């Protein structure tokens, strides 16, 4: 009995080297520093978005107060309402939505077949076509939009939704092609071949097998195109006069609008970005990682 009881005591009595907690402490300290650094970066990246939201939801009175409080004191939709009801903003908003949808439809209609060709076929000129696509991304938008304004004037397309859709579709086409190509590459070739072995034609195999599998990726490409169009300022401002998009409307009325209008406009332009990144955060790395080079 004493031996049994003494055994654990004896184990404890054995001179164990003291546990070295230094590595563990170092690890904990590193983890803590890591979090501190991450939080600091997050504050820099996130806080301005909070501030513009705060500004957009402040009343005129709160906006004029100084020094301002960084905490929401009285949430009011006065500023946003004033922005939305000022002339040209609502039509511009609708134009932006229409142009975004038109752009993504046109870019996918033209771009997806090209992406499929690049993903599935080996043909002469494939590499140079991809290189050409990359090079078009290096073309500054100004170089295109100013001569196009002249072209559209003569063609009677100037100041129309269609004109902006055409330019935005052209701007997003290289990216759309490269993204859809990477999407089609990720659909295994075997399933498509299996469908053809079971009697589908090439087109049927594409429609019934490839399209459903590629759909999430295609949707990602579509959202990407929409945001590109939503954010584009210069071409939209150069090519329109009365049928402004939202960014073009905000840009052209910058100099003669009160601060409240600008803050509300900034907020309205930022909200889609928050949603877009939230929806797309899984795809971002694939999209940029695989398509960009």
């Amino acid at each position, binding site marked *: 009995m004493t031996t049994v009881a003494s055994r654990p005591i004896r184990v404890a009595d054995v001179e164990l080297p003291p546990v070295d907690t230094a590595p563990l402490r170092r690890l904990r300290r590193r983890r803590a520093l890591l979090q501190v650094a*991450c939080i600091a970066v997050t504050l820099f990246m996130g806080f301005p978005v909070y501030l513009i939201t705060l500004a957009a939801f402040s009343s005129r009175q709160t906006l004029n107060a*100084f020094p301002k409080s960084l905490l929401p004191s009285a949430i009011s939709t006065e500023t946003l309402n004033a922005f939305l009801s000022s002339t040209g903003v609502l039509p511009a908003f609708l134009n932006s939505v229409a142009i975004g949808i038109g752009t993504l439809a046109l870019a996918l209609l033209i771009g997806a077949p090209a992406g499929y060709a690049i993903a599935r076929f080996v043909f002469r000129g494939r590499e140079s*076509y991809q290189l050409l696509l990359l090079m078009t991304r290096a073309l500054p938008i100004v170089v295109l939009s100013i001569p196009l304004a002249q072209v559209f004037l003569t063609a009677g397309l100037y100041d129309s939704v269609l004109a902006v859709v055409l330019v935005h579709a*052209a701007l997003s086409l290289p990216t759309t092609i490269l993204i859809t190509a990477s999407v089609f590459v990720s659909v295994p070739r075997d399933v498509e071949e299996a469908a053809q072995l079971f009697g589908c034609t090439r087109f049927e195999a594409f429609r019934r097998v490839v399209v459903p599998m590629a759909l999430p990726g295609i949707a990602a490409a579509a959202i990407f195109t929409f945001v590109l169009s939503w954010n584009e300022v210069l071409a939209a401002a150069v090519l329109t006069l009365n049928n402004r998009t939202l960014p073009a409307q905000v840009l052209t009325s910058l100099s003669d609008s009160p601060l409240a209008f600008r803050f509300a406009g900034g907020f309205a332009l930022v909200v889609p970005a928050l949603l877009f990144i939230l929806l797309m955060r899984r795809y971002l790395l694939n999209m940029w990682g695989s398509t960009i080079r």
Partner: protein
Amino acid sequence: MSTDVGQASGPAPAAGARPPRARRQLPVPYLLLVPSAVFMALLFGWPLLSGIMEAFQNPRGGFTLANWERMAGEPRFWEAVRNTLLLTAVVIPIQFVFALAMALLLHAKPKFAGFYFYVWAVPLAISDLAAGLVWLSVFTDLGYLNSVLVNLGLAEHGVSWLNYQNPTSLFLTVVVAEVWRATSLVLIIVVAGMQVIPKDYDEAAQVLGATFWQRLWHVTLPLLRPSLQVALILRTILAFEAFAVAQALTGRNFPLLVGETYEWSVNLQNRAVASAVALVVLGMSMVVAVIYLRALRQPDSVGGAR
């Protein structure tokens, strides 16, 4: 001429089972490419050519350099050139260091990495106009930054950051807004590039006793070279195109090149001079792309990550 990818490397029976393709019409891949090629020729090729023509034409259609002289005779043009180059030269190094640091932080797999990544990626989808307006709420005279300064007792009335008499603070506000807006793009490219680097190299270096900085400098950065090259070219060209940030923050007090083309084309209704300025932007972009491609060329023997 056209072969399927699968046919070239795939199992023979699958390839043999397909009937030979009709030879009369264009091969399938070319048919699929035609719409996009035509569309891009019309909306990239044509305007590019007509823009070049326009810049060298007088109103009667003859050759002239008058547009270029008019452009160069404008002091604001040179101010815009200087500002554009200065902004790019200051912003790009900051962005790359910042983005690399952010990517390394994410690479260390902190808790809440998903949330951090989301917040850090948000500016990717924010336009330069919106970014300018966001920072306007911070830097304007009665804005949030001055509120904080006054509340902390650091200044009595705040600092007029956006006053044209303070060119330095004007420039710094644009730098901050640009760094905030466009670092995300570099971050995404660098994180995507880091993901394809096999862990073995870093672990091997660690076993051999390399410090963190040694591993960063001799292992990670060389393997990231293709990603960094793409990011550098893309970011520099996009930096040349920034203008709405400055317009939103400073009005016309901080001219940038693209802002000047906008000014010439929309407010002054002179498309010829606007085209000339636009071609200057194009020329700068091309020069930069060539310089980067040369300077960052992969040594031939090293395959790199790709």
